[in-house]
């Protein structure tokens, strides 16, 4: 079994400006935030970000890394919208392809299965089609003659997801209740990376959770990176829940130029170890809230 362990810097070294990058998780849940933070520190630019969007999208937009976002929503769950994404859209700073969240799923599935599109009723009659002339419909070749949306494959140059446990060979284990679409992000991508709370031996998986939790096979991965706290401040149950106080501080800081500069300097213009230390010592000396 090949050893696929990488560092965050090596992961960034695999990426190029202009790439289409898929980011796993959902909203403010199990996002590969350590990898996103590494992207923020990098020279990468002009990215197309494909995401069931959360703060990953907002942060990358705020850092000027993004040319285009492909999304069905961008939300922080407990806070309805991401402030940086709002600004990026409202100032016209980014291009957008907005699709129904089921269409998004089918786009990843089509790319994973190497077919050009998958048919669906979702999107018919809505502005998703009207606003995106690149999206087409197809007429069923059978007697029903139904006209359906042909959701195009969302082919990715690279994808990164975050899991609870992984081994050096790139098998991943998701211990929370929802694997979301993470395996499809990997399946849709040329280069596939898994960040993990903890690297374990393959034998340890069985003591961590039942077989259904071992849902990322090494067939789907090229690199694995251990990043403890790597989903913070999004939820990574059962290891930790969302850091609501931190998320609130993120949103508050985003609303004020000086506060955002302070936030950025304290949390983002440091390496990952620096981030993990800084979050224990919040900016402005605010009280760390127990969680």
């Amino acid at each position: 079994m090949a050893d696929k362990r990488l560092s965050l810097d090596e992961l960034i070294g695999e990426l190029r400006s202009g790439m289409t990058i898929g980011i796993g998780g959902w909203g403010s849940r199990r996002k590969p935030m350590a990898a996103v933070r590494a992207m923020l520190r990098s020279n990468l630019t002009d990215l197309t970000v494909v995401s069931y969007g959360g703060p990953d999208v907002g942060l990358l937009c705020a850092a000027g890394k993004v040319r285009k976002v492909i999304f069905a929503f961008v939300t922080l769950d407990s806070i309805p919208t991401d402030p940086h994404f709002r600004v990026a859209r409202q100032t016209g700073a980014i291009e957008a392809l907005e699709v129904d969240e089921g269409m998004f799923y089918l786009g990843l599935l089509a790319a994973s299965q190497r077919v050009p599109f998958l048919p669906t009723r979702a999107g018919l009659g809505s502005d998703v089609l009207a606003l995106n002339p690149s999206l087409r419909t197809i007429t069923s070749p059978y007697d029903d003659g139904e006209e359906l949306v042909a959701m195009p494959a969302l082919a990715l140059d690279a994808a990164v997801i975050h899991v609870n446990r992984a081994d050096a060979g790139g098998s991943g284990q998701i211990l929370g209740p929802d694997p979301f679409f993470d395996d499809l992000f990997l399946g849709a991508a040329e280069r596939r990376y898994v960040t993990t709370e903890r690297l374990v031996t393959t034998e340890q998986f069985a003591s961590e959770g039942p077989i259904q939790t071992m849902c990322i096979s090494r067939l789907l991965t090229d690199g694995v990176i251990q990043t403890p706290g790597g989903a913070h401040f999004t939820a990574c149950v059962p290891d930790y829940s969302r850091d609501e106080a931190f998320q609130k501080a993120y949103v508050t800081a985003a609303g004020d130029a000086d506060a955002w500069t302070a936030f950025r300097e304290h949390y983002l213009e440091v390496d990952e170890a620096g981030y993990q230390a800084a979050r224990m010592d919040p900016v402005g000396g605010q009280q760390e809230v127990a969680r």
Partner: protein
Amino acid sequence: MNESTDVSRAEFCVIACAEIFRGDGEVMASAFGTAPALGARLAKLTFTPDLVLTDGDAALMVGAPALGTPPSELTIESHMPYRKVFDVVWSGRRNLIMMASQIDRTGNQNISAIGDWAKPKAQLVGVRGAPGNTVNHPTSYWVPNHSTRSFVDQVDVVCGVGYARAVSAGPSATRFHQIRHVVSNLGVFDFETPEHVMRLRSVHPGVTVEEIVEATGFALVIPDDVPDTRLPTPEELALIRDVLDPRGLRDREVKS
């Protein structure tokens, strides 16, 4: 109508939301917002006992626990991660109440953006699953702040598909399309008119038809006799107050 003075506006909204599930069998109820969540639970405890409720995360749960019940106290009957939700949506075994930042005369809903989509005045959450939901299973809307800003002649971005748009998209769009009701803090609306345009179905007691007309940005169909939204039964009121929402979250969403 002496009894109605004791019933809060939010409680009428809960009853109106519960009625959306009347007659449903074993379908998955999804309900966004406090009044819809309470309505689905109330329907399950009374006239729609086979309704299937989600825990708001990745599971289907037993019974109809109070709002805010900690996950550790829920009894789970099935796994329902997001990917399986699409199996349910696309099979049609679902009845949904979504929220709407804007809703219009033919039932289009907007949660994507206000203004020009290309460079919006206000970016909202995004279309989410609204396009797919509305062409696959019954959908209703909850608007807790009825005004000419939320009830508009034409929404800025069509997320949830209304009747006219479904018809113009063709039979594949209309085949499973149904917008049941729109419930607001002022009244209940439906599309049971020849042209499927929005009709005032009932007014919540304490609200006048004139107030609703004033707060709506297009011409509603108003029947000659507009009934009041029905009163909760004593049993229903006790369930809402003592069992489902003892903390009174409903009255924070809609003031009396």
